[in-house]
C-alpha cells in the first residue's frame, strides 16, 4: 500500500482502459481498417482529397519546425509546438465551413492554418508585437486563449447565439487534457447540454499538461465524463487524420441538425516540449515517446497513399517544396515585423473615448517628446 498521498498519486496506472476502441480508420502502418459507422462519413475522401490532407499535414509540421527554429534564433520569444498533433487539428478543422467559428488554445496553429489565417499573423503573439494576430471575423476563429479552458465557455455562448440567430453554423472549442479539469470546461458542458447548443468540444488528449501526465487530471477516459453531462462522446485516434475527419463530420452534422453538442477526445501525443521554454527530459520517459513516434500522423497517410498509388516521389517532392516555400514566407513575415510605436499600446483599451486612458496617453506622449532633440 502506498504510504503517502504523493505515493498513491504516483502509483496510479499510466493509462486507463478505454471505454471502447478509439475510432481508427488508418492504422499506424497505413492500412485502412473499417470502423462502422464512421467509414460512411469519409466514403467520399478519395486519393486526391487524402493527398490534399497529407499536404496540409506536411506544411503545418514544416511551419511548426520553422517557428521552433525562429525561437531558437531569438526571433520569437516563445513557441508552443504542435508536433505530433497535426492530424487531430487538420482532420477536424478541414470539416468546418467558413461561417463556423473556432475558439482555441494557443497550440492550434494547424487549425489556424486551415481557417486561412495568414502565416505572418500567427507569429505576432509569439514575437511580442501584438496580443493577437488576426481579425477573428475574417477567418471564423477567435484569437487563441492562453488561460486554460476559458474558451470552452465562449464557444458554447457563440453556439447559443448561432442558434438564437436561426443559423446552422457550429462553434468548436479546442482544448487539451489539462483543461478538462477546469471549471470553465465543465460549466461549458452543463450549459451546452442545457441549451442544446451546436458546439463541438474537441479535446486533444496529448497526454501531458506541461509536466503533468493525464492521469493527474483523469482516472477514467476523459470522454467518459461527457455522457454524465448529457453529451454524447467519442474517442478517436488523434493521429489518424481520416478517423478524426469522420468523427468530426458526424459531430458537426448532428450539431447542424439541432442534435446539440458532442465531445470528441482525440488521443494523441505531444512529441515536443510544452513550449520552447520547457524541458521534457525532466519528466518524459524516452521509451514512451519512442512508442508514440511509431504512431506518427504523417507516416501512416504517406504509407497509405503510396500503397494506393496516390503519392509518388514527384508529388512528394512538390509537396515538400510547397512546405519549404511556406516556411520561407513564415520566416520572412516574422523577421520583417517591426516593433510597434510606443503610443499604440494605448490603442483599443476601450471602444469609446475614455478620459483616463486618453489623458495618460497624452501625458506619456509629451514625456517622450521632452527627450527629443531640441527640447530641453
Amino acid at each position, binding site marked *: 500500500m502506498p504510504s503517502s498521498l504523493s505515493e498513491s498519486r504516483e502509483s496510479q496506472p499510466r493509462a486507463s482502459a478505454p471505454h471502447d476502441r478509439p475510432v481508427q480508420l488508418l492504422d499506424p502502418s497505413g492500412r485502412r481498417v473499417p470502423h462502422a459507422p464512421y467509414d460512411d462519413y469519409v466514403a467520399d475522401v478519395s486519393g486526391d482529397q487524402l493527398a490534399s490532407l497529407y499536404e496540409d499535414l506536411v506544411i503545418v509540421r514544416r511551419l511548426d519546425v520553422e517557428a521552433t527554429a525562429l525561437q531558437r534564433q531569438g526571433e520569437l520569444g516563445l513557441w508552443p509546438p504542435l508536433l505530433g498533433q497535426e492530424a487531430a487539428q487538420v482532420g477536424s478543422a478541414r470539416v468546418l465551413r467558413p461561417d463556423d467559428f473556432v475558439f482555441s488554445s494557443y497550440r492550434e496553429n494547424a487549425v489556424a492554418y486551415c481557417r486561412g489565417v495568414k502565416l505572418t499573423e500567427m507569429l505576432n503573439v509569439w514575437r511580442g508585437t501584438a496580443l493577437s494576430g488576426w481579425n477573428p471575423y475574417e477567418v471564423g476563429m477567435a484569437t487563441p486563449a492562453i488561460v486554460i479552458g476559458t474558451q470552452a465557455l465562449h464557444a458554447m*455562448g457563440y453556439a447559443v447565439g448561432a442558434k438564437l440567430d436561426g443559423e446552422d453554423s457550429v462553434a468548436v472549442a479546442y482544448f487539451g487534457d489539462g483543461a478538462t479539469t477546469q471549471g470553465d470546461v465543465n460549466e461549458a458542458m452543463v*450549459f451546452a447540454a442545457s441549451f442544446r447548443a451546436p458546439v463541438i468540444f474537441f479535446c486533444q488528449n496529448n497526454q501531458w499538461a506541461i509536466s503533468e501526465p493525464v492521469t493527474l487530471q483523469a482516472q477514467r477516459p476523459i470522454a467518459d465524463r461527457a455522457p454524465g453531462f448529457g453529451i454524447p462522446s467519442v474517442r478517436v485516434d488523434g493521429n489518424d487524420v481520416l478517423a478524426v475527419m469522420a468523427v468530426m463530420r458526424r459531430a458537426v452534422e448532428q450539431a447542424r441538425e439541432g442534435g446539440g453538442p458532442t465531445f470528441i477526445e482525440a488521443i494523441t501525443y505531444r512529441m515536443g516540449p510544452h513550449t520552447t521554454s520547457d524541458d521534457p527530459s525532466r519528466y518524459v520517459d524516452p521509451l514512451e515517446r519512442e512508442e508514440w513516434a511509431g504512431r506518427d500522423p504523417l507516416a501512416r497517410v504517406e504509407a497509405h497513399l503510396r500503397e494506393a498509388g496516390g503519392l509518388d516521389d514527384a508529388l512528394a517532392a512538390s509537396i515538400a517544396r510547397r512546405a519549404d516555400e511556406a516556411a520561407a514566407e513564415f520566416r520572412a513575415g516574422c523577421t520583417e515585423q517591426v516593433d510597434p510605436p510606443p503610443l499604440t499600446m494605448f490603442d483599443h483599451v476601450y471602444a469609446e473615448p475614455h478620459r483616463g486612458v486618453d489623458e495618460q496617453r497624452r501625458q506619456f506622449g509629451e514625456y517622450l517628446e521632452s527627450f527629443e532633440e531640441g527640447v530641453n
Partner: protein
Amino acid sequence: MAEMTLAKALNASLRRSLAHDDRVLIMGEDIGTLGGVFRVTDGLKAEFGGDRVMDMPLAESGILGMAVGLAFKGFRPVVEIQFDGFIYPAFDQIVTQVAKLHYRTRGNVRMPITIRVPFGGGIGAVEHHSESPEAYFAHTAGLRVVTCSTPQDAHTLLQQAIWCDDPVLFFEPKRRYWTKGEVDEDALDRDDVLPMGSARVVVPGSDVTLVTYGPLVATAIDAAAAAAAGSGGGDADTVSIEVIDLRSLAPVDVDTVVASVAKTGRLVIAHEAQRTGGIGADLAAELTDRCFYHLEAAPQRVTGFDIPYPASRHEEHFLPDLDRILDAVDRTMGRRPALYAGAVL
C-alpha cells in the same frame, strides 16, 4: 414623469432596452420566471420570451463566459449577478476576457456586456450579501464601472451602460431599491442629459466637498442638511457641504471634483467599501495632485473598515453614517483634531 422605486426604474430601463434593440439579452439566475430575487427583471420574460430573458444554470463564470461568446456573435448581453459576494466565480472571465478582448483583438471584437450587481449593506443580510467589490473592477483596465443612487439615474445610466460598446459593471445600491423618485422615462432624448461618465453635483455648497456614490448619496444629502442647520450655535456653527455623486467610478469625472475642491478647499470621500486600495484612496491622491495649493486640510476618507463585512448586528457600526461623515467634515474644518495630528515626529 412618473413616480417609481429605484428597482422599478431599473425594470423600466431594461424593458426599454429590450424593446429598442433585439440584440439585447438578459441573463442571470432566477431572473426569468421569478423576475429576480429583487424583482428587477419582473415581467420581462413574459413580455419578451425565454430567448431574450434567459434563466441560467448556476455558475457565474459560465454565465459570463457565455456572455463573451454571445458578444462575439454580435449580441449585447445584460448579466445579473444575484448578489455582490457571488461575483467572484466570474472574476476570471470578467478580468481576463471581458475586460481584455477588445484590446487583445485590436478593436476587432467588441464586448458590450453590462454586468448588473446589487451591492452594499444595510439590509441585515447574511455573509456575502452586503459587499462592495467595486474597486476590484475599477482597478481593471478595459472595464467601466458605474453606480446609481436615484430612480432617475438608475433608469438613464443603465440604458447608457447597455448602449455602451465597452463592458460596464453596473452597481445597484440594494438598500435603496425601494427608494421612490420621479422618473422621466424619456430623459435620454433630452439634450441636457449627462454622459454616463459624468459626476453630478447633488447639493451645492461652499465649505467642504463631500464625494460619494451609490447607497451613501442619500446619507450624504442628510449630512449636508444637518450641517447646514448647524447645532444651534448660529451661523458660525453651520457648514456648507457640496455633495457630489460620482456615478462613474471608472473613469472618475475628476474635473467635476477638482472644480468643487478648488472652490471649497476641503475634501471628504465616503464609501461603504473597505478603505485600503479603495475608490477614496485613489481620489484623494488625484485631488491632492491636482488641487494641492487649494487644499486647506488633508482629504478625509469615511469608509468601511479593513475587515471582512461583519455580521449584520455589527453593520450599523461598519457602515459610514451621518455622524461619521460629519465627524470627518468637522476635522477638515479644524473643529475636531486631525486623526493623525502629531503622528509625524
